[in-house]
Every structure is written in structure tokens, then in C-alpha cells.
């Protein structure tokens, strides 16, 4: 039973083509009695047998009316999905670990209200109850960095009696990028001139430059507590600030030791990009595939590059 279900799911996933927009027609809409519907059919059968045995005409009426309600439900449930137009709207990129929100645009040709529900094909939570045409946000967990394509959608309706379920599977062309999860990193950034060469560095800035023995009178905030914990001696962190206006801090993929895992590196880089964008200092991000300039408030290209890092089919 379980294996059959699994096989059926696989078949559905394989046979649902990805499409930019779609209109549901009778080829796409499947109809099956619900559990309640099957139960009602059993009741109709029982009443029918009773009618047969006791020769009760009115019981036939009852039995056949239940069957007629079932038949009508097939039409009514079909109507809930027929002619439905679906299209995915652009969805915002998210950071790994956050919740992606795909936007589904539903339209139908008439103005009558409909009652249908949407869920991801492979999950059981009802995402939206749609009664009017419009945009519906469909949340999806985005645990991993990279490209997230919209999974197969299952739309279904049991309206108005709950006896028959009309359903359809749709895979819409929509994808969003999942940025690396930002991970705080204490590393000091190296400063570069506009032309990329190292320049003189003035002390007392915001950027971490190195360690020096701590002297009384210096701020407690400058103590490197980690060093103290390891070595037992007090060390003060030295800070610098860019000396020239044309220079900006830079950060490279290769700044990290070889044993730092790629995803962790990307997470650190992501954190730095966000910091730089927020602080307005700007940042030059050097990745193996290219360099990206982070300006104040515009971290998009750099974040995208991080999200795409190592993704082969990063075309979309």
C-alpha cells in the first residue's frame, strides 16, 4: 500500500510538466469520491438493500437521491476547478533557514465565488483557501542555499457537499534564490585602494588590524577575551580605518583557511556583505568566479553571487 502510494507520487511528479502559466481543463482535473463520499455510497447501498427486501418504494427514493447527490457532486466539484488560470508571480529571495513565499496568481473567467484549497503535493498542510481570484502567498521552508524552484502544487476542492474531490497537479515556472544563512565572523577586513593595491592604514578606525599587549588605561572593550581565555594574558585589539577615500575593505573566498567548509565560508561572507551594506562602508567581494562590489544598501548582486556559488544550472 505504502509502496503503491510512493510509486503514484513519483509518477505524478514525473508527469507534471513545468509551465509558465496554465488553465485547468478536463484533461487536468481528476475526480474521486472522498472517504465521506464512499461512506455515503455504502449507506445508499444499505438503504437500497433494505428497500429491496421490505419492498419500500420511498426507501428507493432515499437511496437513489444519495446516489444522485454523488453524481451532481462530480459536476459541482469539477466546476470548482474548471477554467482556473494559474500563474506564478515573482517571489522574493530569502536566506537559508527562512521561509520562502511563492506567489500564486489565481484567476477564473466568471465572477462566481469558488471554494478550493492549495497545498504542496508532498506536504499535507493546507496553504491557502481560495474563494476569490487574486494572489495567494504559499509559504515553503527554504533550508538550503541555492535555487529553489516552486514544487508541484496540488489544488483541490470538495465543495459543496464534501462527497467528491476534484483535484489537479500543477508545476509552475517559478524559482527564487536562497542566500546563504548569515553567520557572524570576527575576521578583520583587508583594505584596498581603488586600484586594488594595499595602502597605508591609519590606526583607530573600525576595522580589526591585529593584536597588541593591553595596557592599563585602554578601553576594556578592546580586550580580546578569546585570547585571554586561551593564553591567560591580556591582549588589546588594534583597529584601523581606511586611509584614503578611494579605498574599501575587501573580502576574498581565499581569506579563509582551507579547512573551513564552503557553506560555512559562504555564510561568513554573506554576513560580511550584510554588515557592509548596513554600515554603508561598502565591500569588495572576491569570489573565484568574479568580484562583486557591495555598496551601501545594495547587497543584491553580491548575495546572488553567493547564492549561485557552485550551482551549475544557475541560468534561471
Amino acid at each position: 500500500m505504502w509502496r503503491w502510494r510512493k510509486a503514484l507520487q513519483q509518477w505524478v511528479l514525473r508527469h507534471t510538466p513545468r509551465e509558465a502559466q496554465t488553465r485547468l481543463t478536463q484533461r487536468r482535473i481528476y475526480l474521486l469520491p472522498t472517504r465521506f463520499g464512499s461512506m455515503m455510497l455504502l449507506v445508499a447501498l444499505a438503504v437500497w438493500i433494505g428497500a429491496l427486501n421490505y419492498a419500500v418504494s420511498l426507501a428507493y427514493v432515499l437511496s437513489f437521491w444519495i446516489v444522485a447527490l454523488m453524481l451532481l457532486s462530480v459536476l459541482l466539484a469539477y466546476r470548482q476547478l474548471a477554467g482556473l488560470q494559474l500563474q506564478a508571480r515573482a517571489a522574493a529571495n530569502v536566506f537559508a533557514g527562512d521561509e520562502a513565499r511563492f506567489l500564486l496568481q489565481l484567476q477564473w473567467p466568471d465572477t462566481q465565488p469558488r471554494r478550493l484549497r492549495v497545498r504542496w503535493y508532498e506536504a499535507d498542510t493546507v496553504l491557502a483557501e481560495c474563494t476569490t481570484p487574486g494572489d495567494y502567498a504559499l509559504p515553503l521552508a527554504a533550508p538550503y542555499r541555492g535555487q529553489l524552484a516552486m514544487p508541484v502544487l496540488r489544488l483541490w476542492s470538495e465543495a459543496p457537499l464534501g462527497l467528491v474531490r476534484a483535484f489537479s497537479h500543477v508545476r509552475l515556472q517559478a524559482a527564487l534564490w536562497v542566500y546563504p544563512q548569515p553567520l557572524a565572523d570576527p575576521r578583520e577586513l583587508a583594505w584596498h585602494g581603488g586600484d586594488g593595491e594595499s595602502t597605508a592604514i591609519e590606526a583607530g578606525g573600525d576595522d580589526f588590524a591585529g593584536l597588541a599587549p593591553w595596557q592599563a588605561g585602554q578601553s576594556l572593550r578592546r580586550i580580546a577575551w578569546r585570547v585571554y581565555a586561551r593564553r591567560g594574558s591580556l591582549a588589546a585589539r588594534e583597529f584601523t580605518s581606511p586611509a584614503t577615500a578611494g579605498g574599501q575593505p575587501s573580502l576574498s573566498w581565499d581569506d579563509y583557511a582551507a579547512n573551513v567548509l564552503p557553506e560555512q565560508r559562504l555564510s561568513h561572507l554573506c554576513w560580511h556583505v550584510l554588515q557592509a551594506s548596513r554600515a554603508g562602508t561598502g565591500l569588495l567581494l572576491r569570489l573565484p568566479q568574479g568580484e562583486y562590489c557591495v555598496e551601501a544598501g545594495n547587497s543584491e548582486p553580491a548575495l546572488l553571487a553567493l547564492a549561485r556559488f557552485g550551482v551549475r544550472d544557475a541560468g534561471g
Partner: protein
Amino acid sequence: MLADELRLASFAVLAALALVALPLFLHLPGWVPLVFALLLAWRATLVWQRQPLPRRLWLMLGLLLPIAALWLNLRTLVGREGGVAFLLLLVGGKALETASLRDWRVLLALGFFLAATPLLFDQSPLSAIWLLLSLFALTWAMVLLSGEDARLSPAVTARALLLSFPLMVVLFVVMPRLPGPLWSMPTEQQGATTGLADSMSPGAIGKMIPSREPVFTAEFRGSQPRVSQLYWRVMVFDQFDGTRWTAANLALPRGVALSGEAQPLRYDVVAEPFQGYLPMLEQGVEAGEGVVLGYQQKLRRVDAANTARLRYSVQSVASSQYRDALDEREQAFYLQLPADNPRTIQAGQALAGRHPLPAARLQALQLWLAEQGLRYTLNPPTLAGNVVDGFLFDSRQGFCEHFSSAFTVLARAAGLPARVVVGFQGGEFNTQGRFWQIRSSDAHAWSEVWVDGSWRRVDATALVAPQRVDAGIDSTLGEVAPRMPLVGGRPPGWAQWVGQQWQLANFSWQRWVVGYDAASQQKLFQQLGLGEVSAANVVKALLGGMALVLLPLAAYVLYGRRVRRSVAQQVWQALGQRLRGAGLAIAPGDTAAELQAHAARLAEDDQQALAALLQQWQRLQYGPQGGDDAAWRHLWRQVRAFRPAKVGRQR
């Protein structure tokens, strides 16, 4: 579904169940539906106060109590009464363990099953109305359970039931019926049926209260019989103990032989069995499907234990006698008399001595009875002891029971085998429906005497009150005639008309709904040209009927309302028509630009008006806030007022 919606839906389910079970108060021991109602009320209170359900174990133990009481009360948990009562208690228990949506749906499905149970007891039009009410309540609960908006739900329910009605009718007509039951039911103690009892004690009842209750209907194919021919035979009483006639229920194999071959009458009867027997016109020659003609010319169901109403067809030759060969033992049986009623026996023996030939003796007996100065009345004095003597020689008043009993005793005393036949005589012809309505007050008893190898009917009552037979009981006795309630007197013409219409409605109900069985189905199939009720023909009829109903239904459900909705299109079409009226060649699919290009031939004023209308249409259709109904209606009025001058005329 939100918790509050489920709450409303669960109230609807409980209310529907209560409604469904209400008629069972009439048919079950009163406390059973009462316990059911209390269980539902308890559940409703729990839902209302948002309290948890009782423990399942306690619930089951608690249910054992009423079930045990039911066993003590009815001595059974199966069959019609026992089974229904048992089911009712179980459903009540189930109501107290419903929590999730799925539970409520199971309960609702049980409610649909429960709706069938009152129909086992009663199938009158009133039950049908109740069934409709129950169906509405149940379907409404179903709609609410599926999460429909509470305000829309009644309309949705009504629509679903209305749209599914034609489908139901097709299934009802076409789905094959079986001539008999699948398994035999446990026989039930039959309640008091009106009309005929299983024995006859003339003189025991002083006053007979005539009841105009309809008992059965008969519909003749071809020629209608005369009222005096309508002797509906049901039972035969052949044992007399001095005061009471009973049936010995001998079961000897016997064929039917009629003297002289007359044209048989063919007719259909819808009737409930009386003590297991069904009415049939004397003398029956052929019984249709589902009934058999047995010894003593009695008609009974094939499944004798079934007491349900039945529609059957019979062929009879209207005759007052039929041939039957009695052997010595049988003749002796039909001559048995107790030693009571010495004066009657003496009179019979005296007549026998004077008339040795049986036929002449029978003549003499009738003549003698007619000369006794007997009077027909429904209010004779009660008699005790030698009841026949008392009737014939003292009170000299009585009704059919007295007459038939007295004559049969007289005939036996005179050495002629005789018996009493009980049934109905006469009936009222409904001119609108062309059927005969036989009422409880038409019940009658007469004698049958065996002379020269055949049984001859002697209606002793008719010897004294011949109009009883010629025109029916209504004309014999003023008090039985239909009366206006309270006012008294004969009802006016329109009231009779209403009465006949009501009868007709009842008859049609009995015939087409309650009595629609294998035989009627067969007949209908033949009338529709479908031939036999075979699997292939049923499938054919089912497909045909379904297509006939489903196609318009599908068109209505899927497309009908959509087309009607689009105001914009209607306005657009109206505009196109106006332009076509002005002599322009406008195609239905033309765009606004194309319309204007065509309109270049119009007069200057008209062109400007058209441009304004088009602009407004576009604003309403595609504008940011769109058009509301009032705006569209305004535009539509403008379009109708727009009458461009004809292009052709200017040339």
C-alpha cells in the same frame, strides 16, 4: 475548518438527526426515541459548553442499560421494530463520541441511514414530506460540514437537492426491482387492520360504525364492470361453533373451472393483505405475478409473510358461480353444524323435506328467507346464545354478517354444503382517475352454497336490501354517505370534486410511487418501447435517461450561469445590434477600433455618440476600479437609447 464553523455544523447534524427520528415516536415504544433525543441533547450541551466527551468505557456501559430494557420490552433486537430501535440507541451512543470532522461525517452518514427507517412503517404522502424535510436537514448539515459559509448554506442545499432530483427520478424508474425479497423477514405480529377480522361473530357487535377509510384501489383495463358485479372475495369462513365463524384454512390442491366462457375482466389492484389474503373479483381465473390463486378461490401473496402493500394484476370472470368437485369428506365438512340454533335447523330440515332437488331447495331457502320480514340495519340489538335463531325469529334486524351467517346455517341444515365468504362489495368509481376506490365501509359477507357440482353465490343481504348490492352501501344507509364535518348534509359539488381529486392524488401516489414494483416497471418499460426488464435494457434505459438529464444539468452547472453573468458582453452585443440596425456590417468579434472604422460611414453626431459610448464601455471594463452594477445599467440604458440614423437611406 475553524472550530466555530465545526460547532455550527455539529449542531446542524444533531438537529437533523432529531428531525429524522421524530416519526419513530409513532412506531416504536415511546421511550426509545426519547432516550435517543436525550443523548442528542446531551451531546448538544457538551458542544455548547465546549466540554470534553464522556469516557468511552462509561458510555458503552451506560448504553447497555437501554439495550437491555429494549430486549425486555420487545424480546428482539432484529426485525423491523427491534432492529430500528437498536440502531437508534447505537446512533445515539455514537453521537456522544464524535469529536473530529470525520466523526461528525460518520454520524451524518448514519443519519441518512436512519432516515430510511420510518419508511418501513409508513409510506403515506405525509412520510414522503417528512423524508423531504429530513433530506434537507441532512444535506444542509453536510454542506455546513464541508465548510460552506453559513449564510449561503441553505441556498446551496436547496440547489443541490433540486438539481439532483431528476437524476433520482431516472434511477427510481429505471433501476430494476426484484419481485420478491432477498431473504424472508421474521414475521411480525400484525397490528389491527381495518376492514376484515379473522373471524365473524354476528350479533356480538351491536353497532357497526361505518368508516369511509380507503382500503384498496382497482383499475380495470378495457371495460368497466357493473357495481352489482363487484364482489371482492378475500376470505372464506367454513367453521361455525354456534356463535362464531372461523376459517379452517384447509389447503387442498384445486384448479378453477368456470361454467361457460365469458370474457374475463383484467384489472390491477393495489392492496394490503387482509390476514394474508388479497381481494379479488369473483371468480378469479388467472393470477398475475407475485400472487397465487389457491383453494377456495382465495388469493394470496407468493411471499405470504410479507404484509406490505402490493400491486398485482388478476383476471376474473364476473360470475356468481364456479364449478368445483367436492368429495364425500369435503361435503361432510361443509355440512357440519353444532347443535345450537334448533329453530333454524328445524326450518332448514323442513324445507329440505319439501324440496328433494338441490337446486329447487336452494330457491326455496332464498324465498323463505325473504319472507321472514327481516330488516337491514347497522344498529341491530346485540344477541347472545342461539344467535342465528335470535336474528331470524326474534330481533329480525341485522347487517350482512347476520344475513350471511343465518343463510349458511340454514343451507347446511337443509343438507346443502355451504360456507361464508368475506370481502368487499361495490366501490366508488373515480371518473378523473378511472379507477375504483374501495372503502372500509364496503366490507361485506355473503354465502356460497354447493349445488349440482358448483359453488353458487347467495347474497342473503341482497334478498332483503337489494339496493345494498346495486348501488353500494352509501345509498342503503343515509348515515354512511359522505357528510360535511360539523355542518352535516350532503357536501356540495365542489367538495365532492376536491374529494375526488384527493382520492386521485392518493391513488396516483399508491400506483406510481408506493406501488411501483417489478410488475409496474415491466409495464412502463413496454409502454416506452424498451421491451423486457433485462440487464441490457436497463443499461440502455439508464444511459438514455442519464444522458437526457445529465447533459442539460451539466450545461447548466458548467456554463449556464457564466454566460448570464457577463454584463459587459451583453452591453457590447446590444451596441453591435444598434450599429447593425443602422446598416453597418458588424461582426460579433469586432474590436472597438474596428467598430469605429465601420462607423466612419455614420453621421457626424452618431459617430461622436458612439465614441463616447465605446470610451465609457472601456472605462468600465478595464478601468482601475471597474464598473459596478449601477454604472453598467446606466450604460446599458444609454446604449438602448442610441439610435444611429440608417446609412443606406442617406444614399
